[in-house]
């Protein structure tokens, strides 16, 4: 079989002891740096990129992929342990993961993330090996109109993320969308809300905003209830999953993997969309619906699987079309060009050893990650037993460096500080931060694609319903909206108990 011989070719590259070693070093470095609060995958890869310059192309890319997986897992680890998502797709992991950690179930949450990710990574890699070109063709079907409709669906789904008052959740989404308009308007080149600050021309940085609103703000809340805190974090019980846990996560992992594998193919935010679409879906489907937001294990399993499956399939546009779908992939392309390989549609036929080597190494990278991280869970969990008055200054210190490292500029440190204030004010008023952050991420994409579609159609709004794909996404969005609103009208919402 053709696939088999291709995979053998890939294995002969990926399983070279040297390459296995580089893959392992990559995972190790990625985890080590990515687990520092404030250092997400993009920052980690950018910092570690120069290390790979001296390596042969295959090893360099395998190592970079390892760094990517490691950094991503590291980002989820901080989301669970200290409510600090390292990247956009772990925002949702933080919601229930952090609550699990507070309930003394950090070990189970981390194990769920590791195992769910591994399963999703394996499935997505197989999918990548079998169906990369047809999946890439699907990605090409998504033009500006389809993206706009997808973003609308995403926004509607994100309403479901909130556990409290519906108008308040919607207000947060809108506020997030508004924050997303800061910076140079892509279509006209006009600066908006920049107040002559050059750093604002590129908009507010996601990592800085989320560190302020989630991480630093969480510290503020903990310091306020310092006496109670020792009570609120329960004793760590059991690092591993119980039989009941396993039963509960099978469904979410499977559904998350499916959703993530598909959405990850779409360039520009697919994987991120997948992580919270799957959360929203589980919140609807799960029999333990009431537990969501208070530490439901499904709320960790689904987004983490979706996230990792998406991370895997986000290689598809780059490997089959030569077009990077997100900043991380753009860095990979940069590394490839520096190695003398310009990625393009012909990479599969021109560089089969590289292509199949990468695919096989994706799987081996995921395997190494799980081998590396399962034993480490004990260590991470023990970190929570460090007295809080020693832990929180260290978190703030790393957050400051992390914010600085985004653009090698202190401006992002100020942004972080500013948003810790905003986040604190919002939490006092009982507004939830997660919908705000999702609005902030989706906003620019929503606006860009809306206006781009209108530009291409010469101002004809029927472009959104003429394309069957776009139409069906919009119809689906309406259905979801009705489902979300329906119980909201009849049932009195449990506002005060959301915290």
């Amino acid at each position, binding site marked *: 079989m053709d696939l088999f011989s291709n995979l053998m070719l890939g294995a002969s590259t990926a399983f070279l002891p040297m390459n296995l070693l580089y893959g392992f070093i990559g995972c190790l470095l990625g985890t080590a740096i990515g687990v520092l609060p404030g250092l997400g995958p993009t920052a980690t890869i950018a910092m570690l990129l120069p290390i790979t310059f001296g390596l042969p192309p295959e090893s360099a890319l395998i190592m970079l992929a390892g760094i990517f997986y490691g950094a991503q897992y590291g980002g989820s680890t901080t989301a669970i342990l200290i409510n600090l998502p390292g990247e956009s797709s772990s925002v949702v992991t933080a919601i229930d993961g952090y609550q699990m950690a507070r309930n003394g179930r950090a070990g189970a949450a981390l194990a769920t993330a590791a195992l769910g990710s591994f399963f999703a990574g394996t499935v997505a890699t197989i999918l990548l090996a079998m169906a990369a070109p047809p999946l890439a063709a699907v990605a090409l079907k998504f033009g*500006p109109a389809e993206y706009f409709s997808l973003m609308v669906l995403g926004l509607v789904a994100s309403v479901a993320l909130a556990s409290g008052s519906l108008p308040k959740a919607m207000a947060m989404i809108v506020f997030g969308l508004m924050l997303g308009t800061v910076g140079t308007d892509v279509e006209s080149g006009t600066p908006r809300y920049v107040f002559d600050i050059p750093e604002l*021309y590129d908009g507010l940085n996601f990592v800085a905003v989320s560190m302020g609103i989630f991480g630093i703000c969480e510290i503020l809340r903990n310091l306020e209830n310092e006496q109670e805190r020792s009570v609120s974090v329960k004793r760590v019980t059991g690092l591993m999953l119980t039989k009941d846990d396993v039963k509960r996560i099978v469904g979410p992992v499977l559904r998350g993997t499916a959703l993530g594998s598909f959405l990850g193919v779409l360039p520009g935010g697919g994987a991120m969309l997948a992580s919270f679409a799957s959360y929203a879906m589980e919140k609807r489907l799960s029999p333990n619906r009431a537990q969501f937001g208070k530490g439901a294990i499904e709320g960790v399993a689904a987004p983490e699987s979706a996230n990792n499956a998406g991370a895997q399939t986000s290689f598809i546009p780059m490997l089959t079309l030569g077009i990077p*779908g997100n900043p991380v992939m*753009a860095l990979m392309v*940069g590394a490839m060009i520096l190695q003398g390989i310009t*990625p*393009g549609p012909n990479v599969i036929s021109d560089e089969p050893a590289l292509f199949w080597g990468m695919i096989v190494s994706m799987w081996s990278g995921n395997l190494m990650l799980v081998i590396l991280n399962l034993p480490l869970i004990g260590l991470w969990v023990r970190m929570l037993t460090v007295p809080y008055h020693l832990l929180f200054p260290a978190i703030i210190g790393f957050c400051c460096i992390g914010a600085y490292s985004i653009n*090698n*500029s202190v401006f992002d440190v100020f942004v972080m500080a500013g948003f810790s204030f905003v986040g604190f004010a919002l939490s006092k008023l009982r507004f939830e931060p997660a919908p705000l952050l999702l609005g902030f991420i989706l906003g620019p994409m929503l606006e860009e694609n809306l206006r781009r579609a209108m530009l*291409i159609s010469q101002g004809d709004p029927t472009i959104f319903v003429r394309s069957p794909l776009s139409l069906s996404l919009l119809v689906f969005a309406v259905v979801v909206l009705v489902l979300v609103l329906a119980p909201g009208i009849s049932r009195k919402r449990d506002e005060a108990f959301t915290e």
Partner: protein
Amino acid sequence: MNFKRVMTLAAVAAALVAAGGGPGRAADVYPSKTVTVVVPFAAGGNTDTFGRLVAEQLDKRLGQRFIVENKPGAGGNIGLGDLARSKPDGYTIGMGTVSSNAINQTLYKTLPYSKEKGFEPISLIASLPNVLVVNPDKIKATTVEELIAFLKSEPGKHTYASSGVGTSIHLAGELMATKTGIKMTHVPYKGSSQAILDVVAGHVDMMFDNIPTAAQQVKAGKVRALAVTSLGKATLLPDVPTMASVIPGFEATSWHGLFAPPGTPPEIVEKLSKEVQAIIADPAMKAKLEAMGVTPVGSTSTEFKDFIAKETAKWAGVIQAANVPLQ
């Protein structure tokens, strides 16, 4: 045995110390300490790549560390602002591009550094031609002449993508429009990869794109290349004619060069310029750059200065003619 090894190590260490102490004696000879090379764009991009390649060679030739520092943001303005504010002693130098050093002067109403003082140009390093690519299903034209005739027959109906308002890719399209009087709709994206993706998919009709990535799409038959925007033919696409052969004088390249802060002593600029020229003339380096689709260009400080003045004037004209809003 062991003793011998220790002695050898000691000798090596002594030699290293002596070598390390060497430059201390000649403290007045530039460079006597680490030099920072500011790259005003993110790691992994073109400018970063060229900056790193040259820094690595300067390191070897001048015996001091040349460290690349990425300061991305606001189209290069943030890094260049830092560069302009640093001490003009030759220990901080930086990369600049057609966007950051010739277009932004007009595009931005204010810059975080003085437009008059500018920078001391050291040398041009590399120039990347753009290539005009069209989606073969949307545009039947196979030559630039046919394309112009076609676009004239349906004014305003067709779209071209770019990597953002005011980028060299956008202005290449505007240059074509103003020189030929055609009307097209500009569809800006954030960066060129999303843009070329939509041209490949047929959501947008055409685009000028940097050659290394576009050449791959052309070779795979996903898009059709009509012309390159350099005055000479491009090594990666030798069969594609130049825009200048249809529209005389049409040139829109994305160039990258090395700069020093204003007021850097001329002898230091001169020394660095000579070194960079030698580095680029080196056959191995030349081959490496050409394989990336880049035209390696070394130039003296004065040549570079004149070139920048010419480019700034050209793009200012296009920005005014096309009514690009100033930022």
